């Protein structure tokens, strides 16, 4: 089973919850798909068994010895990536979308498309199973493709090691890397927080999630920061027909555990939050739809 943890809003506690799920006992494969802010390896210190190069998107590069500054490329580029500055064609690496159009229409063949090979994907073992994660090199784009590559590797590793569960830590937002994360998964868990922003972002990411599976559950993290807001979110979930998987209290020990390189369930198995996480996980694994509070 592939289970993805996402959030819409960043910083709601996705990775801390994922880390706790991953260390409850069952041996599993963890796939960190938040590739431009991958963090779980910090808690799991996986022993790298494989390292693969991820070839990112293309970027147009102009050869000034061939370029006649005719401006055709500039007039056709729809990403505002090409400008003429001081009699020279300049292609902005940040704006270039890698579409190849300019390189194809340049009458002088002065534009070539190059790819970056600085990003990496790693897989290896950690104390409770296997872990796969991607690290996008600074400034690299096209993270959706790296997400797909991480998920493919996680499936391969799961089959090889005979592990049944793949737990995916997803990126924030609702765009391309999130869609790559949830496409084809069996269950989606959304971690939110009891704030106005948390609810607004939950609504958007929930719309996306429901396109991919009806098995969408919501966890309200730090719910005691604003119980009234948590109640409102719970009501909203009920109206959508989505399961409220549980509420988790705000607990500084989650951060203390992170600083110590552990998950909260490893450091403080008897804490209220750990018990709640345990219960949520057991329900998820039992495929139960009952509400847990």
């Amino acid at each position, binding site marked *: 089973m592939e289970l993805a943890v996402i959030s819409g809003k960043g910083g709601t506690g996705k990775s801390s919850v994922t880390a706790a799920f991953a260390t409850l006992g069952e041996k599993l494969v963890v796939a960190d798909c938040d590739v431009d*802010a991958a963090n779980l390896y910090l808690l799991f210190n996986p022993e790298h068994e494989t390292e693969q190069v991820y070839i990112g998107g293309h970027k147009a590069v102009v050869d000034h010895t061939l370029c006649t500054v005719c401006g055709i490329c500039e007039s056709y580029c729809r990403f505002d990536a090409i400008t003429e500055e001081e009699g020279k064609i300049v292609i902005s690496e940040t704006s270039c979308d890698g579409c190849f159009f300019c390189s194809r229409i340049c009458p002088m063949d002065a534009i070539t498309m190059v790819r970056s090979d600085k990003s990496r994907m790693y897989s290896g073992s950690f104390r409770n199973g296997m872990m796969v994660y991607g690290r996008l090199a600074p400034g690299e784009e096209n993270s959706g493709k790296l997400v797909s590559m991480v998920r493919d590797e996680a499936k391969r590793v799961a089959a090889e090691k005979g592990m049944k569960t793949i737990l995916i830590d997803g990126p924030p937002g609702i765009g391309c890397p999130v869609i790559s994360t949830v496409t084809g998964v069996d269950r989606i868990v959304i971690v939110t*927080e009891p704030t106005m922003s948390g609810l607004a972002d939950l609504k958007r990411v929930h719309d996306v999630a429901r396109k991919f599976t009806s098995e969408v559950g919501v966890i309200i993290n730090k719910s005691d920061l604003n119980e009234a807001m948590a109640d409102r979110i719970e009501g909203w979930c009920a109206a959508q027909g989505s399961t409220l998987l549980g509420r988790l209290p705000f607990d500084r020990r989650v951060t203390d555990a992170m600083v110590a390189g552990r998950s909260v369930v490893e450091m403080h198995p008897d804490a209220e939050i750990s018990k709640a996480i345990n219960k949520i996980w057991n329900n998820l694994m039992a495929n139960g739809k009952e509400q847990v509070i």
Partner: protein
Amino acid sequence: MKIAVASGKGGTGKTFVATNLFNVLSMRGDNVTLVDCDAEAPDDLLFFTAERISESEVTHQVPVINKDACTWCSRCSNWCNYNAIFYVPTAKVIEVIENLCHGCGACSFACNSGAITEKPVVLGTVNIYRTGRGYPLVEARMRVNEMSPVRVIKAAIKEAGEDGMVVLDSPPGTSCPFIQTVDRADYVLLVTEPTPFGLSDLRQSVETLKTMNKQCGVIINRADIGDSGVKNYLSEEQIPLLGVINYDPAIARSYSEGRLITDKNDKMAGFFAGLADKIISEHGTGSN
């Protein structure tokens, strides 16, 4: 001058800092505009009573293929780098997969038989509001189920113009949406938290900003929950630490209710005003 408030890691307090910075500058009458560039999860508006001035759609051009005119030459599908043209000539199938199309226009140029025209597809909206204090808030809002917020972000920043102070509330992460936002900024204010996750993502942001030659300073939020890793890193890298905000349940509460702490709390208002002054005194108010 454009200041981007960014973070790498989500949920460190970008929106908290951006909205309050904008709020104190508008309280004292500075010429300031707030742009919510987190088009996938736009939340800035929740913190203001504001009146909508305009709404404009951001579109891109997607091909429409007239099968009757198609000569099955395959040039369009060969030129498409996004696999957005599903092409099986033997079965006489040619279709545009709009979700994969980036609107680059290569296919319609490639077509020699005039079989491809284009139609606009809406990617999102740029909404302009005027806040209760009379200052503009520009919101980039990507449509749900679209893949990339980049065009919407670009359009929103353009809409904000070049006058006065422009505060850009950046999306999290360090890939395309973040890069598009900070690319337009004269200065980047990074908001982090003093945890191993916060540090790892801060590093990634700083490294990305280095490749872009952007100047940055850092605010540590919830500074008393975590360890000293971030502070050590900042001194090693000689990155200015501009401010430290300790965890305060009152701040968390006002944020959760969509209220601005600087409206009620003079100490916090002073903190943000001081922050703005520090950046302005060192980097001016002009654009690069």
